[in-house]
């Protein structure tokens, strides 16, 4: 899939003090549409896999305590699964997955929707583990050495050359 011009708009921030990963992105769609895209299986299936493939499995039991499971075709051994803890359309969805708390927060700003996705881990070590997951690169020796990040430092990718 060719790189899209939008990709530079995703901002990633790591708050090591709060062991939280925070991603922000603006969308040209109303909050309700984005909330539905996160909570209806036929919609999640369309966009969840970074590789651009529809999901092999997408199960959603949308109620507090209800379970969800997203499985990609490429990595069936690594499902993204958990339970919902708060369902507050159109602006807030909270879930527990893989030992961390995920929060999707939607805010309308000047006709656009500002989406913040937070992944709150239990500890700094857990945060490092989380960052390593699903990331397959040849730099594992340096990954093992990662111990810290300056608190609150935001990282935005450079434009591709």
């Amino acid at each position, binding site marked *: 899939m060719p790189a899209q011009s939008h990709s530079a708009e*995703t901002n990633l921030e790591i708050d090591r003090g709060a062991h939280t990963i925070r991603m922000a992105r603006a969308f040209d769609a109303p909050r309700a549409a984005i909330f539905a895209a996160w909570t209806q299986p036929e919609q999640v299936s369309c966009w*969840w*896999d*970074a590789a651009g493939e529809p999901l092999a499995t997408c199960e959603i039991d949308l109620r507090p305590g209800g379970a969800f499971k997203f499985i990609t075709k490429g990595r069936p051994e690594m499902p993204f699964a958990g339970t919902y803890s708060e369902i507050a359309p159109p602006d807030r969805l909270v879930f527990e997955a893989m030992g961390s708390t995920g929060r999707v927060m939607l805010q309308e700003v000047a006709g656009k929707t500002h989406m913040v996705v937070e992944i709150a881990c239990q500890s700094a070590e857990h945060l490092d583990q989380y960052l390593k997951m699903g990331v397959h690169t040849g730099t594992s020796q*340096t990954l093992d050495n990662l111990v810290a990040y300056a608190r609150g430092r935001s990282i935005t990718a450079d434009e591709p050359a």
Partner: protein
Amino acid sequence: MTMQDRHSERLSSAFYALSDPTRRAILARLTSGEASVSQLMEPFHLSQPTISKHLKVLENAGLIEGGRDAQRRPRRLAPHAMKDIADWIEPFRQQWAARFDNLDAHLANMKSQEK
């Protein structure tokens, strides 16, 4: 030593430097602009030798560098070092960026179906 080795050694020393909370706090302070040793002493309630020791570790790791004013010896963030660390996190960011690109395309698709 190959370039890859050098790169990996530099990252290791950067990660070591970042393992200390005081050094992380110093870096966080320098993100808002350069500062001299005495300016750094105040907020951290540390002695001049202690601050200097931490600055040395950060400097050796290539995370900070000396500013232009030779007398005050202000320190500032070294932009390239932070970029190396940013590169480390890049695969994770890219994965989510790709996912959000898909979501963006999906939302546009849903919108056009409505019409």
